[in-house]
């Protein structure tokens, strides 16, 4: 909202945020607010909650910035400040261009009015001039594809229909900057694709997009940059793949802390129960076995495995890895169709992924798998021993096990990465060890066989002449 600086010096910046801070005053009881304001020189009667603690970033025109982070990380506050709803406690916000914020789709809709009337009302709320209103409503009608329901009251819409109308209303405004908060997770698959392709259109037309989502793949595929907001701070900023790996690591650590907290609680409860009844304590459950394991030692592995583990650990950056390490991935290798270790495989040939694992303690039915991702970080193939129907034998303490996955990679030539994971169970985030980008490899084209899509499936073609 600067006027003078708009022109020559940095025409490319659409959003600039500098050292943004927001503190909420929380009053336990409503009367505290009154007492604090009315009693002169009274004590402070509120708790301060820092939603944003000095966030800075810049978004250039035409960029798509994905914002990801756990709940309570400050995403919503940031968006509300950017769209001018709330005032920051301190810091600077500069937004250049008309902005449309979709903080909650369907805001302002009146249930008793028809879709058409609501579209017109939404347009006028968003400052569409009366003269353009009919054209706008026609565009919305076209995009939403609600057919005869467009003229029925919104009250009788299904939630999917409601979302269609809301999204259509929002994207047909064609603003310079679009802010979207968790909007794409609704609607049927057909409509989701339509929304994503509309956002890609907007990007091609050099519109700036801010996308808040919990869907890592959406952010990887839509955004050219991502930001991880955690506890009101910008933890990570840059390439979406790397930022999302960090997001997963943080989710894992949060989960582990939560489990540890529950374990403490349960211990307290069981102790009391035991004292009361004299029974033996309950057997250790799922939540009981999450302490970080002691690191494995050279003696436990032997010199050759120890050297391999050392080289592997040096190769994978520490921040892309998380887990309790009760079981550990000490190496991963790719072998080509001739069973030769290689980082380059030919399209359509069989390859073997060998994961070497070490177990500090005996683990019942561990699950090993990996995620194969393309260069944008998009999850292409995910397999594990459980989905393949192979139950890993229960390894004893100090066991080292090689697990080999043999599969045929019909993937578009390009660069791919493998993220192996060793898990206690099929539960999300229940990892002993998870390593992002543990191995990067190339798929090269087979002679004269073009792959038009992401992958290819053997296809049989038949003809039937009708006339």
């Amino acid at each position, binding site marked *: 909202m600067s006027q003078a600086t708009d022109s020559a010096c940095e025409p490319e910046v659409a959003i600039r945020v500098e050292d943004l801070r927001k503190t*909420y005053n929380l009053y336990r009881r409503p009367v505290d*607010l009154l007492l604090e304001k009315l009693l002169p020189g009274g004590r402070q009667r509120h708790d301060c909650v820092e939603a944003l603690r000095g966030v800075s970033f810049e978004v250039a025109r035409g960029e798509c910035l994905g914002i990801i982070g756990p709940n309570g990380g400050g995403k919503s506050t940031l968006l509300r400040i950017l769209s001018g709803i709330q005032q920051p406690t301190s810091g600077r916000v500069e937004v250049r261009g008309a902005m449309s914020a979709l*903080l909650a789709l369907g805001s302002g809709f*009146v249930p*008793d*009015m028809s879709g058409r009337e609501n579209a*017109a009302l939404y347009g*006028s*709320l968003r*400052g569409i001039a009366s003269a353009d209103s009919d054209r706008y409503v026609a565009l919305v009608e076209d995009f939403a594809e609600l057919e005869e329901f467009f003229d029925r009251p919104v009250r009788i819409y299904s939630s999917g229909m409601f979302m269609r109308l809301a999204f259509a209303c929002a994207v047909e405004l064609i603003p310079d900057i679009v802010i979207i908060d968790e909007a794409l997770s609704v609607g049927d698959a057909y409509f989701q694709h339509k929304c994503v392709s509309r956002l890609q259109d907007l990007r091609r037309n050099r519109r700036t997009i801010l996308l808040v989502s919990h869907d890592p793949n959406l952010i990887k595929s839509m955004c050219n940059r991502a930001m991880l907001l955690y506890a009101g701070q910008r933890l990570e900023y840059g390439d979406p793949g790397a930022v999302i790996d960090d997001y997963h690591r943080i989710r894992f650590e949060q989960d582990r802390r939560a489990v540890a907290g529950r374990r403490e609680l349960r211990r307290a409860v069981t102790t009391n129960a035991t004292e009361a009844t004299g029974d033996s304590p309950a057997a250790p459950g799922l939540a009981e076995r999450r302490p970080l394991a002691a690191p494995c030692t050279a003696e436990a592995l032997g010199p050759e495995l120890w050297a391999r583990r050392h080289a592997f650990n040096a190769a994978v950056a520490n921040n892309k890895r998380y887990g309790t390490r009760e079981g550990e991935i000490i190496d991963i290798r790719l072998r080509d169709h001739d069973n030769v270790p290689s980082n380059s495989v030919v399209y359509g040939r069989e390859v073997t992924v060998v994961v070497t694992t070490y177990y500090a303690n005996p683990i019942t039915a561990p699950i090993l798998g990996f995620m194969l991702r393309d260069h944008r970080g998009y999850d292409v193939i995910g397999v594990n021993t459980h989905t393949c129907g192979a139950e890993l034998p229960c390894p004893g303490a100090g066991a080292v096990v090689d697990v080999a996955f043999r599969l045929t990679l019909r993937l578009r030539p390009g660069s791919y990465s493998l993220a192996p994971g060793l898990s206690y169970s099929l539960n999300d985030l229940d990892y002993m060890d998870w390593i992002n980008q543990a191995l990067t490899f190339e798929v090269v084209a087979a002679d004269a066989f073009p792959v038009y899509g992401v992958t290819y499936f053997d296809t049989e073609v038949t003809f039937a002449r009708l006339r």
Partner: protein
Amino acid sequence: MKQLAQTIFHHRRVLLDLAIVDIRRRYLSSVLGLGWAFLRPLATFALYAVVFGAILRMKVPSDVYGSDSYGLFLIVALVPWFAIFEFIARGSAVLFEQRDLVMRMAFPAEALPIPYLLAALFNHAIWIGLLLLFLRFSGMGWSAALIWAPVLVLLLAAMGLGILWFLAGVNVFLRDLGHFAEIGLNFAFFATPIVYSLTSVPPAWRFLLMLNPFYYPIEAYRSVFLAQCSPPIHVLVGFSVVSLLFLFAGFRAFTALKPQIPDYL
């Protein structure tokens, strides 16, 4: 103040739309529709007319207003009262009902009382139309004094906007205000000479009633519509001062609270 006028002018179309939506929303889905806007106040009117007119036989000072019909005496005062009632009863809900517009659409909160004002004025306009019909059919007729009517409506609107701003803003921080307003309305109804006239109060107590800000609109409406003469100068001045004071105080309170409103809404 200038900025506010610009905001309101910029959003004039949507504010009008919101007023229409508000009117429609209240009546659209019921069978009687707009009829409900009048059935409820009419029922109130009928109740009071029977209780105070027919049973308690309140006297109407015909020497003051030139008519001894209790029904007319009552309805002329109830018309502005219904408007005041609506301002106070709905004021504290303005920002909560329109929370989405403030919190999700970044709509300027200070403009949101406008649709409520317009909706109330819409009802008020229909009441004035009905009142003019009553006057004609009761044999009172219309006189030149009725040209004061637009002035009264304007002053009432200023008062209403002030009330709406004040209640809408303060209620975000002090949510008890809605309950206070409800009780206050009950007291105010009887503390204002609506079902009785000022002259029926002992002279020593009249100054108390004249401290009541709502005395002035009621008295002004009675002079113009019932006595059909220009309002007495003290009533006109009192009405203007009270209305502008309400408007200014409401605006000041709202602007002072505005930056904090989204944090607490």
